[in-house]
């Protein structure tokens, strides 16, 4: 009997192990595929010059700059708003129907397809507010898109902090605001950073929301103000893969672009991770 029990256990663990490695394997497959296909075009010229010859040679510098602008812009939009809403929802708002309503609405917001955000961004920011196709309109649209992620991770990281810290602070005569910025936020900060990492990953890869709000098909010059259009890596990838004059010739460029996009996201994750570990406090629950 005992033997059968152990065999069953071993079998199940093997299945779990294989599944886990399968996931890892697929991930490495994708990365390896991109490395093999994209490595060839990767060069100093590729990341520092503009596309040439109907985008079949040259580089992708304007698209890199554009994506960096959009990531920065959208974080400037989503982060203050999202973190402040998260703080309000978890620390101040009483748990009534208003909070439940807001929570349901933010969850709904996160399930709206990104192309709908693009359309909305075009209607509101590009047309109604008259920003035109611009970094400003694109950043606002992308910012709205990731707002639910930021709100939810902020809320979750605040919720994870035991009330003993808050009570300890209040019992010393600290106000609620002092308690939040001197005790609660420093503890929550590393986890809030996770929200930032997730949003950056999401924003850098989104194509649909920028399609009608900022992305340029081909624009070799760099932006000089937030009212300029820019190229962006995901859209550039889409263009290279589907609508160039010579798709075959542009293919290596497409793989190179994909590789750069992934490397940028990876780099930002690493930087955010370093900030996270530098600021994380060792506290016992």
């Amino acid at each position, binding site marked *: 009997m005992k033997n059968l029990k152990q065999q069953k256990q071993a079998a199940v663990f093997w299945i779990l192990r294989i599944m886990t490695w399968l996931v890892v394997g697929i991930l490495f497959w994708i990365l390896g595929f991109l490395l093999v296909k994209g490595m060839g075009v990767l060069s100093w010229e590729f990341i520092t010059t503009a596309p040439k010859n109907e985008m079949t040679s040259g580089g992708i510098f304007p698209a890199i700059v554009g994506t960096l602008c959009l990531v920065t812009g959208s974080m400037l939009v989503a982060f203050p708003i999202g973190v402040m809403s998260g703080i309000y929802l978890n620390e101040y708002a009483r748990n009534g129907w208003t909070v439940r309503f807001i929570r349901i609405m933010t969850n709904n917001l996160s399930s709206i397809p990104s192309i709908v955000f693009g359309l909305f961004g075009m209607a509101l920011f590009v047309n109604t507010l008259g920003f035109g196709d611009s970094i400003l309109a694109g950043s606002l649209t992308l910012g709205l898109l990731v707002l639910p992620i930021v709100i939810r991770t902020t809320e979750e990281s605040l919720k994870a902090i035991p009330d003993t810290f808050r009570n300890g602070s209040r019992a010393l*005569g600290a106000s609620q605001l002092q308690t939040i910025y001197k005790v609660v936020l420093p503890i929550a900060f590393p986890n809030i950073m996770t929200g930032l990492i997730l949003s950056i990953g999401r924003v850098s890869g989104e194509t649909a929301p920028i399609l009608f709000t900022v992305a340029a098909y081909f624009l070799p010059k760099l932006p000089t103000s937030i009212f300029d259009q820019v190229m962006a890596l995901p859209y550039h990838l889409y263009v290279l893969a589907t609508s160039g004059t010579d798709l075959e010739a542009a293919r290596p460029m497409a793989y190179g672009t994909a590789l750069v996009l992934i490397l940028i996201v990876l780099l930002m994750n690493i930087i955010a991770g370093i900030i996270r570990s530098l600021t994380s406090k*060792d506290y016992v629950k």
Partner: protein
Amino acid sequence: MSIISTKNVDFYYGDFHALKGISMEIEPNTVTAFIGPSGCGKSTFLRLMNRMNDLIDHTRMTGEILIEGQNIYDKTVRVDELRTKVGMVFQKPNPFPKSIYENVAYGLRVNGIKDKDLITHTVEESLRNAALWNEVKDKLKKSAFELSGGQQQRLCIARALAIKPRILLMDEPASALDPLSTSKIEDLIFTLKNDYTIVIVTHNMQQAARVSDKTAFFYLGELVEFDDTQQIFLKPKIEATQNYITGRFG
């Protein structure tokens, strides 16, 4: 002249009637122990004295609590200020994820004290008064989490002492600690009595008998008996008290 005086205090969590008509006088520079089975209202009553129950939704209180003659539930009372006068130590040590020094300085900083020398002086003095100075004087900049549980609790006491309260409320301060750390806390309570009025909630009968001058027995939200500790433990007047301290129920 009592330093704490409560008159007919009733308290409700929603519909639950947690305290029923509690009246009590507490003398300055004494240790008063609250004993009673879990859920009898002793911690709730303790938390009324620095208005920590304000932080819980759907609660309601009637009656009066006077501290140094002032009704602390009066509309003109500033709660943050009240809490600097009535300090609190919690059941589980809850130091902040900051250095030992910053933990003790916290109460001063949030109350607007900026003078560095004054802060440093007060930190040392408070750590000495909490009998922790000799153990931590060389690692004030280290995280408070490097301390043992008992040291952390004494750090929390130092933190409470730093803002110079008149009264120290202790909510089962030793229940999460080992016997050695517990006896250190008890010794500390004994010396602190000279400068502070202490109210301590405890589940430990021996502890109540050892540290307190007066003992209050709570049962089902009522103050059953309140008398000199000696009297309560040797000759309680009420049968329920007798049953509880001899362990026949609880």
